[in-house]
């Protein structure tokens, strides 16, 4: 077995040093009824070649995004990731280290986290950011719990534009903790509708921009209404590249900004692992979930970095902790940070502009196909379109013709009565010929 260095001679010698006869003597504390004398009923070990063959066969049964026209978004976006990113995250020192518990020999990871926190704070326009959470959706749920702690109120109001999976993650955690949730009906352009639902019990208002239908909203008025009622405003973003073009949550008065960071540095990976961005106003920092990296000095006065404010965390506070989170999304945060460092402000703005431009081209092409109606009034790189008939069936049909058209809204929320609504996205990876192929196909399919 190639991963196990001990030889039979080593094992025998070591058992002798320990002073036992056989390995079974080290498992004596296991109740006799639960001891298994033979391996379980699964295949035996396999060499690299065999494993690679089996895995490749499984991978071939999936249609990858790069194989042809592809327009899916809805919280996960296909962007080009520079080769440097994947090369660096596979360096042993980043890949095979753990949470930096011993800062003197983890300055690499810690400085990256400090840089990551600074980048996230800048992008979101907030004062502080943490060292990442699992993903955007769990980040949104954590944000609601944080608002509950800060305000000591127990109601969360969510707009009808929040990604339904995020709503699900929020409801799961909130309901378990006794926080009531009120979600506005799914709506393409009505983030403002939350204002009417804010009351004296409201801990937080959760809005999304661009929202799940792609609609971009200035949430300043919602922030004012929330603050007037003593509630916090949580602004969710699922497409982090949009920060390069649009007003930041901080500029619009957000108290907590949460985002899915997958778009920068991370592939689609069928939904995970991704990286949750979490930023807030500095005055709330002691109620934040997750790891925080901070600057300090060493015994010689040299600048260095450590995990800090850990008295918020589970390993110190146990049942009084702000969150149960331990492991976060370190390597995905590193990928995000490297990609962000390569882009810089210049590159990010260009990238965002290109995404928007491709989406406009897609919109214009679809608007020209008879029977298709563009529903999203203002968007970044994604919008909703009304299709003739059932969107899920249309997507299946197009997939059989080689195009992945988009995400039917019913896939996210089957009860919204929006079976003819399709979410489509374009990024810098979208080719003009893909758009042409799609519209020709649609004309043909609709024409049949």
């Amino acid at each position, binding site marked *: 077995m190639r991963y196990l260095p001990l030889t039979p001679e080593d094992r025998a010698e070591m058992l002798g040093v320990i002073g036992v006869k056989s390995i079974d003597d080290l498992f004596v504390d296991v109740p006799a009824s639960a001891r*298994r004398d033979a391996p379980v009923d699964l295949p035996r070990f396999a060499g690299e070649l065999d494993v690679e063959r089996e895995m490749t066969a499984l991978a071939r049964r999936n*249609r990858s995004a790069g194989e042809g026209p592809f327009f899916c978004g809805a919280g996960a976006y296909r962007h080009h990731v520079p080769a440097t990113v994947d090369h660096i995250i596979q360096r042993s020192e980043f890949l095979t280290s753990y949470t930096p518990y011993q800062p003197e020999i983890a300055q690499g990871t810690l400085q990256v986290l400090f840089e990551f*926190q600074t980048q996230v704070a800048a*992008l979101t326009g907030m004062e502080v950011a943490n060292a990442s959470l699992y993903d955007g959706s769990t980040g949104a749920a954590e944000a609601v719990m944080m608002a509950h702690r800060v305000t000591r109120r127990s109601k969360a109001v969510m707009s009808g534009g929040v990604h339904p999976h995020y709503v699900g993650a929020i409801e799961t955690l909130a309901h*378990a903790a006794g926080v009531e949730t009120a979600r506005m009906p799914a709506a393409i352009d009505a983030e403002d509708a939350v204002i009417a639902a804010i009351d004296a019990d409201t801990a937080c208002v959760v809005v999304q921009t661009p929202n799940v239908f792609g609609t971009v909203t200035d949430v300043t008025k919602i922030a004012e209404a929330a603050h007037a009622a003593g509630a916090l405003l949580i602004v969710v973003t699922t497409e982090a590249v949009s920060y390069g073009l649009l007003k930041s949550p901080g500029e619009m008065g957000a108290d907590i900004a949460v985002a899915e960071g997958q778009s920068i540095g991370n592939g689609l990976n069928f939904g995970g692992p991704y990286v949750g961005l979490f930023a807030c106003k500095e005055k709330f920092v002691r109620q934040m979930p997750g790891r925080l990296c901070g600057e300090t000095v060493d015994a010689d006065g040299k600048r260095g970095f450590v995990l800090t404010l850990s008295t918020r965390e589970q390993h110190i506070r146990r049942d009084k902790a702000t969150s149960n989170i331990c492991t976060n999304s370190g390597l995905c945060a590193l990928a995000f940070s490297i990609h962000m460092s390569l*882009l810089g402000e210049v590159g990010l703005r260009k990238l965002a502009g290109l995404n928007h431009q491709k989406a406009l081209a897609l919109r214009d092409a679809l608007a020209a196909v008879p029977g298709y109606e563009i529903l999203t009034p203002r968007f970044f790189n994604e919008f909703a379109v009304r299709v003739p008939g059932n969107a899920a069936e249309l997507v299946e049909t197009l997939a059989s013709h080689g195009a992945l058209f988009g995400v039917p809204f019913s896939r996210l929320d089957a009860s919204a009565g929006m079976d003819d609504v399709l979410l489509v996205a374009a990024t810098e990876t979208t080719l003009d010929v893909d758009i042409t192929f799609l519209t020709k196909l649609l004309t043909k399919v609709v024409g049949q």
Partner: protein
Amino acid sequence: MSMNNVGRPTRPETANDAGGHETLTGGRGLLQDEALIFELNGWTKTGVDLPDAAAPSSDLAGLLRSEPIGLPGLSEPEAVRHYVRLSQKNHAIDLALYPLGSCTMKHNPRLNEKMARLPGFSDIHPLQPQSTVQGALQLMDRLAHWLKTLTGMPAVALSPKAGAHGELCGLLAIRAAHEAAGNGHRKTVLAPTSAHGTNPATAAFVGYTVVEIAQTEDGRVDLKDLEAKLGDHVAAIMVTNPNTCGLFERDVVEIARLTHAAGAYFYCDGANFNAIVGRVRPGDLGVDAMHINLHKTFSTPHGGGGPGAGPVVLSEALAPFAPTPWLVHDAGGFSLVEHAGEAGAETAFGRMSAFHGQMGMYVRAYAYMLSHGADGLRQVAEDAVLNANYVKARLKDVMSPAFPDGPCMHEALFDDSWLEGTGVTTLDFAKAMIDEGFHPMTMYFPLVVHGAMLIEPTETESKQELDRFIEALRALAGAAKAGDAERFKGAPFHAPLRRLDETLAARKPRLRWKPVAEAPLAAE
């Protein structure tokens, strides 16, 4: 002096004692001093070549960023240097032993990285038609089959994103089961004092009150205390097995019986499943729910703090309450039940997160499983336990095992009583290990042992490497007892930085770089 014919010295001079001097640049040989990216003057640079974009659509007037974001860029060579220089300041399992108890820092096979990067896994969208991702769903199904078979449990919820997220999943399923049975009044969770911090944090997070269970002299759950604390108010117990003292809970079957008799569920923290995989099935012990850290037992890389993955195996009683999405297989192939309440997920408690979980980790874990097979995984547990007992046996005369009698499982726990009178603390000892080239063990955890040192070597260490480690610890122990406290108090001396001031960091939090120069922090 020995020289070649152009006057180049070919032998070192006799050592002069200049080793301690400061360099002029702050760099030291291969170790470069590296500034923050914000200090490299990259405000107008980019390392990504992109075509120019047209001006944004007029629809977005008033919605555009007007202020600079404040992000520097780096050309590709600068970026590569920046991160390579930083990387060299990290310890890693690829470099040397990393015996963090309970964290399971074992070798991460590179084949698994290669497999996870196959476009058929890495470049597929979570919401593309399920007919186009049958291979991905099949992989999830096979992973589920291996996890169920290895644990002897009938069901598994794959989606939790890490161990603590798995705990949350398990407790939410337990809560839903109690509520469905009209037992919503059960609001207490019992957990031993030795539990991971995540256990009480998770229980409290879902609104449960945590009551601690006492521990026996030999480091196990005190059955009498458990029995006394069980009752109609108890929703669940959370017990780690093997526990955080590195010991198998001998009475685990009785613990399960008592718990079930009291109408409560048995949540097992499976962080230490690597010690028993292939030899013991938790299902045979009476467990109702257990998370499995794929990044521990099944070796997906720890990545400087994640991503992890924490699938939860569930008993028949809890399976109906598992979160969505839920994988089903019928004549038409594989499909996902994605909404709670739908057929197949009528009683699901809800959704843990967006999409379907940590696919990238599933691919790596499944490749690891295939590589080892049933026989290899059993050998994994045996070698992990053998290595830990070997370390314990060879250090027990110079350090003090917390539980000297009987074998340990995959980790060896020492207390600090052997340091008494030396002036050296567990922390000092750990920092001196850094100077010797090893990552310290887990320190001050579990909380039930004073000055705890929890050593988990894992099965991927050779006997030679273990011996090197043991000799280093024996030498350090000897130095501590011989009164060489200086070696420890100021340690580390040979790491990229000396000991860091954590109090200062917490007292004056600086959590980001700021464009307006701040006064340098100074030690207090």
